[in-house]
């Protein structure tokens, strides 16, 4: 019997961040319903802190999705979390930049500040009885020991699992396997893997992450997403099914990817063939 893996679809959050995409609430809810029908485990539905359109979308998803859990994405910010809580999602996801490059150059803070702020945010969300998952942003360029320390703190605070994000898509399968293996053993937590396709290896890296013990894999419909996109749902299901039980029917996944093209790219609905 094949080992089970769980699909987290982030088409409506990281996927929609693909430059040029702009979905309204109604479209987002329709896509979420489609994903729910496919049998994905979780739908990362959007960023409520962006405002009313995203909040309305999250509400709508909650009412039409009967199987998939709806996740709201947040920065390390209590204000973001408050806006997400207004939509009553099933899961609050908090993104924590963990590489020194991100901490120093983007946040312009230090590790101590990061740990303290992460604790405050998790404490606030858990205090309101929310299930919390944490995303280690830029994990592929971060120090494994530091991530393991943070993971142990998060485990004690009742965080469900951590996302390992290859934010700039630089991993190889061997690198993904080794990093996930070390982090999972050091932290003793379940791991979700989030690939980007900058080197055309998103599918291979996601399979390697599963082989290293990751349980959840992030995908998007047709691989939409920042730059070269994320791990494509159909391609991943087709490949991972050789070794794992994804719980998703490949032909249904392909049909869903074809169906959303007109919603994602209405101006290109009749575009030329793409190699």
């Amino acid at each position, binding site marked *: 019997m094949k080992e089970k893996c769980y699909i987290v679809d982030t088409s409506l959050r990281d996927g*929609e961040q693909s430059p040029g995409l*702009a979905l309204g609430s109604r479209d987002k809810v329709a896509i979420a319903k489609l994903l729910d029908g496919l049998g994905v485990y979780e739908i990362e539905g959007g960023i409520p802190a962006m405002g009313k359109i995203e909040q309305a979308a999250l509400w709508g998803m909650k009412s039409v999705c009967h199987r998939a859990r709806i996740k709201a994405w947040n920065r390390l910010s209590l204000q973001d979390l408050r806006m997400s809580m207004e939509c009553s999602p099933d899961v609050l996801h908090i993104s924590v930049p963990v590489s020194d490059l991100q901490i120093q150059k983007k946040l312009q803070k230090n590790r101590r500040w990061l740990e303290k702020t992460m604790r405050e945010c998790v404490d606030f969300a858990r205090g309101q009885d929310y299930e919390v998952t944490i995303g280690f942003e830029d994990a592929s360029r971060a120090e494994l020991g530091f991530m393991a320390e943070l993971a142990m703190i998060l485990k004690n605070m009742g965080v469900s699992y951590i996302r390992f994000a290859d934010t700039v898509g630089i991993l190889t399968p061997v690198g993904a396997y080794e990093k996930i293996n070390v982090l999972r053993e050091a932290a003793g937590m379940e791991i979700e893997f989030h690939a980007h396709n900058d080197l055309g290896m998103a599918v291979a890296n996601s399979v390697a992450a599963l082989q290293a013990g990751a349980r959840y894999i992030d995908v998007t419909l047709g691989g939409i997403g*920042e730059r070269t996109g994320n791990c494509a749902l159909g*391609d991943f299901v*087709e490949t991972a099914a050789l070794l794992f039980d994804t719980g998703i029917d490949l032909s249904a996944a392909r049909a869903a990817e074809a169906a959303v093209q007109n919603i994602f790219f209405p101006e290109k609905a009749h575009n030329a063939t793409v190699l």
Partner: protein
Amino acid sequence: MLTDCTLTSLDAYGAQAESLLCLLRKIERLPVDALELSVPVYEKLRAFEPCMDTQKKYFLRIRHSAERSAYPGFSGYLLQEKSKVPAEENEEIPCLDLYGKEIFMRRRGFDRLIGIASKSTFEKILQTGKRNELAPRDTFHCATALSVTWLLMGGYGAAASLAGIGGYGCTEEILMALYLQGAVLLQGEMSALQSAKALLEEITGQQLSGKKPVLGSDIFAVEAGIHVDGVVKEPSLYEPYPPELVGLQRHLVIGKYSGRSALLAKARELHIQLEEKQLARLIERLQRKSVGRQARLSEEAVRQLLLDAAD
């Protein structure tokens, strides 16, 4: 050794000899070690003597051993007779010199060798001590990853093609992955990729996706607030390598996900004075407009939006 096989996968397109020569010249500029040509492509190119650069190796894909003597002057001849193995099974294709001596063995296939499983298989192949060139098929979307894994483990060589045409791993992805792993140096040669891509599109009559890794025209577009903020502070935060390395440029797109940083950067670019207090309302208007259009805003629409807000 990385062999580019693009010019073995274009026979069906009836390309003009001039276009093929231009493409050959562009691929020669890439940091690949060898180029492989099909006989029909070489037949078109041989009119342009000397069509082969002396700095690279050139291989010819042949169907019959006797073809070697008809086309002298190649570093090697890949003898791919009519395949006797079923699809998806591994195939061995010898690369012979003009006199029939084997230079290396190409191993085509490995379709189902996914994820980390490749490592132990490759270790066994390496232990044979023979010169093996890997040419993974892309049936399960892992050909690039397999080639990179093989080369980083010390494999003799890999065969690939631009954009993976012909079902190979992608030359441009393999080169970039090796560069990011510190295994090869790139010194400007990759900028030839954009013109090579344009020629490939012209020859095949098909447009490459703007999101195609390394080649796509949209891969350095940035819209999301969090990413624009990061890229403004330090591009490497959200870019795996500088766009200029592959002949591309970063460009800012204004749409639903644009935030304060993006709008302020765009206003600066258009020399429009914008104050911090105007931003919250502007972002709301921008989101409504983008969602209404279901797309990014045009430069003119953004300019108008910013001017209205600045009034």
